[in-house]
């Protein structure tokens, strides 16, 4: 039997992990809600940003916060690029083509990363302490990543509620055509959304690379999980995204300690499948 303290530690670690996952799910959710296309390669963009932070910090000796800002900027640029080069030409295509175009990007990014940087795992080492709280060992790095994720989500919330373009983004996700009738150029709104979604991927990349090693297939490990949290959270529902992220990362974290890492994921995915039948609008939305 596993000692309760380990379970508690796993639970706390699950919560800490949920911050970044919620951030990612929100970025994806924003794009899905506004443009109505799932970026299958979203977490692969995160992977590219993780490499940037790795090189800036470990090779060029930049301070981490500056590298993080660089990662944010790269994410935004990648978001713009993906929208302009891949999404714009297929906006009117069949959904399967839309999935496949970003799926092609996934192949491209994974193999290009393999080509450029090989499949070696690369780690950003930080000399930050491990905290001991009541017999549990908690990583200070994870705590920081969690807090920054929360702040970023708060920032996004303020942006979507308080700014003109933020409100317009919410309006487009509710009725795209009506917003065009208000004089908003859809392409402009899409571009702003894609840049913000990309920037969140960039920020998440910086927060992830200090916790996990980066390798070309990083997206394959976190991608499906992110889609699922995004859908479970419910479109445009920030609280929902956070709750979904907590639920999924708790299952993975505790499942990982009690059974095995893979079984943790298996249980989380099965929960996702079942929830899609019971609560298709998201965890917090009752079937209408």
């Amino acid at each position, binding site marked *: 039997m596993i000692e309760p303290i380990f379970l508690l530690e796993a639970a706390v670690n699950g919560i800490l992990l949920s911050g970044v996952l919620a951030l990612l799910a929100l970025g994806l959710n924003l794009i899905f809600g506004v443009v109505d296309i799932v970026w299958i390669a979203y977490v692969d963009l995160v992977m590219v940003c993780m490499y940037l932070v790795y090189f800036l910090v470990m090779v060029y000796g930049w301070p981490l916060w500056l590298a993080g800002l660089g990662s944010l900027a790269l994410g935004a640029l990648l978001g713009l690029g993906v929208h302009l080069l891949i999404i714009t030409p297929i906006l009117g295509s069949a959904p399967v083509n839309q999935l496949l175009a970003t799926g092609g990007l996934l192949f491209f990014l994974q193999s290009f990363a393999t080509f450029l940087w090989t499949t070696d795992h690369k780690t950003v080492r930080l000399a930050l302490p491990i905290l001991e709280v009541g017999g549990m060992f908690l990583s200070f790095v994870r705590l920081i990543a969690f807090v920054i994720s929360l702040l970023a989500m708060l920032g996004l919330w303020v942006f979507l509620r308080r700014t*003109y373009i933020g*409100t*317009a983004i*919410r*309006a487009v996700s*509710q*009725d795209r*055509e*009506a*917003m*065009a*009738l*208000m*004089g*908003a*150029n*859809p392409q402009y709104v899409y571009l702003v959304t894609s840049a913000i979604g990309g920037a969140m991927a960039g920020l998440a990349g910086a927060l992830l690379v200090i916790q996990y090693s980066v390798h070309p297939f990083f997206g394959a490990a976190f991608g499906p999980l992110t889609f699922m949290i995004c859908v479970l959270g419910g479109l*445009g529902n920030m609280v929902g995204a956070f709750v979904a992220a907590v639920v999924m990362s708790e299952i993975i974290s505790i499942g990982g300690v009690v059974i095995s890492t893979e079984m943790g994921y298996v249980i989380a995915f099965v929960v996702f499948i079942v929830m899609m039948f019971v609560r298709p609008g998201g965890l917090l939305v009752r079937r209408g």
Partner: protein
Amino acid sequence: MLELRGVTAGYGHFTALWDVTLRVEAGEAVAVVGPNGSGKTTLMRVISGLVAARAGDLVFEGDSLGGRKAHEVVRRGIAHVPEGRRVFPRLTVADNLRMGAFQPRARAAFAESLARVYDLFPVLRERERQPAGSLSGGEQQMLALGRALMSRPKLILLDEPSMGLAPVMVLRLFDLLRRVRAEGYTILVVEQNVRQVLRLVDRAYLLEVGRIRMEGRAAELSEQAFVRKAYVGL
């Protein structure tokens, strides 16, 4: 002010409008009536740029609108209140009105427009903080109208404004539309409620399976003539 010459339009292989020609003068109110599926909504969508015309030309204040996207058409002063109102349900009433003034020219005059809309529809001021989805059908129609006015239009397109409203609400709505008219807006309205709409407008067209069948001054056209033509086909 607005002129359509031989406009043909549709979706995919389906043609909804055939060779439609119509005119709206500045300060006028014009109605297009016709049975369900006669192409009225398509007509509105072609004017506002949501659907591209396949043939023919649209001229607004001397400039061609051909090939312009919806967001460009609004900027030239045409506001479209779409069928089914289409307010943003999870945005507050105030935010809906803010979105109405999205384009720069309208945003510059935001405060003044808002005061005017609140004067016309005081209920919107009361409901300012509520999500639009929680309003009644009549209130949503007022919001949709107010949101269109926020763009400081010269011409307002109204698509079935009375649809889905209770009979009492329909009467109130037409009263409000008369007040909007009195403010000097030019209106092109599509309606199934022939009796009410003929009391609102100066002139009317009858649209039938995508073609203009009749045109005349509202006062001269008896309701019977239109109704018979539109629904009995005599």
